[in-house]
């Protein structure tokens, strides 16, 4: 099992490295969403700064959503997925490794540039640590729950919008606690509760989501 994890990790890291240009796409997309929002709003009214946490969270979420389709699709199309399904290794473990590398290439870069995004939207600096903290706890959750949806739709050829429709209701709690915690902190309320709940959800998802996604994969792949 250790060998399998090592092989999967090495494989994904190599693939990321060979296509390192693609890894920039999610962060560029998030940046564009933020810029477009800033262009569409009256920047001097203060509404922008108030909307900033919601917009940055929305940007991270939408860009993760766009990337979600690629989570298993490539492996499904070239037959790698079939080999996973036939492998004696626990499928949930393979899924977990895949989700981890996917999070690293899609969500982590956005977290890294989130101070920049905050600056663009005039987010008060005091809220930045809260924003980063909530993203760090929330985005893995997005990836884990997204994996279940991606697995269910892996057999459908052009799943884009359907994927979004299915995933977004499931994303609501994450967004509510994630962006909500920043808003709460801005109002001087105690936001640690929201972060704790996010952490608890993350801990649970880490255990449950790969297993559920593995079941969904067996259902979704004809």
């Amino acid at each position, binding site marked *: 099992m250790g060998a399998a994890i090592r092989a*999967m990790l090495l494989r994904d890291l190599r693939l990321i490295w060979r296509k390192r240009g693609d890894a920039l796409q999610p962060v560029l997309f998030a940046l564009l969403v933020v810029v477009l929002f800033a262009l569409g709003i009256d920047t001097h009214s203060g509404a922008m700064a108030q909307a900033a946490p919601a917009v940055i969270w929305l940007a991270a979420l939408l860009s993760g959503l766009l990337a979600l389709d690629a989570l298993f699709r490539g492996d499904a199309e*070239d*037959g790698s997925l079939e*080999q996973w399904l036939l492998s004696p290794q626990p499928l949930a473990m393979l899924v977990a490794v895949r989700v981890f590398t996917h999070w690293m290439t899609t969500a982590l870069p956005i977290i890294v540039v989130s101070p920049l995004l905050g600056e663009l939207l005039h987010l008060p600096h005091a809220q930045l640590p809260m924003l980063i903290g909530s993203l760090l706890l929330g985005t893995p959750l997005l990836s884990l729950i997204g994996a279940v949806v991606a697995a269910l739709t892996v057999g459908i050829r052009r799943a884009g919008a359907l994927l979004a429709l299915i995933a977004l209701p499931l994303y609501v709690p994450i967004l509510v606690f994630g962006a909500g915690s920043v808003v709460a902190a801005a109002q001087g309320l105690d936001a640690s509760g929201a972060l704790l709940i996010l952490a608890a959800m993350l801990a649970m998802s880490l255990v449950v989501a790969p297993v559920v996604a593995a079941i969904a994969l067996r259902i979704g792949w004809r």
Partner: protein
Amino acid sequence: MSHPSEPALLSVHGLGFSRNDETIFSSLHFTVARGEALLVQGGNGVGKTTLLRVLAGLLPADSGELRMDGGDLDHARRAAAFAYLGHLPGHKGDLTASENLEVSCGLLGRRPDRRIEAALDRVGLSGYDDQLARHLSAGQKKRLSLARLWLSPAPLWLLDEPYANLDLDGIELVNQLIRAHLDDGGTALVTTHGAYAAPPVRTRQLLMARAP
């Protein structure tokens, strides 16, 4: 079909599968023993691929029973015993030939007596270790899949049209690999349209035809 004296490696009783309530096949019976191959033959669309995918567990059977070495075939035993070569190559185009084999050895296991370089050699890909899979030609990709099979410890090979895309040399190579595998006590299920040469080994035939 007659039953051999040794317990069959795989025996199938009353297997049925339907898609959207269209029966693809029903109540299929056959057995395969170690050291013999089963040729699954039939025209376009009779369900050969479907049968192999059902056996591999990629599609759920509607009815029927599979037994291996006389025992039940649960998920773990199936995964350890079956190696599948389907229409999809199962390689990442952006990994090299040997990196791809490393991955599959990690996932599917490796026969301790076989090495990656030797396997590439065996299928006629020596010198291509460092070529990205997406730069291989269709026939070379097929050979890479054969190398994966060759490395796998599974005794039962499910080969879906292994001869397709290959030139005459390649067809001969498949036959050699099957023969060697059977000599080792393995078994192979091979689907074919019948246009290609069968491997020169003890074979049974399963002729499939469209249900009326």
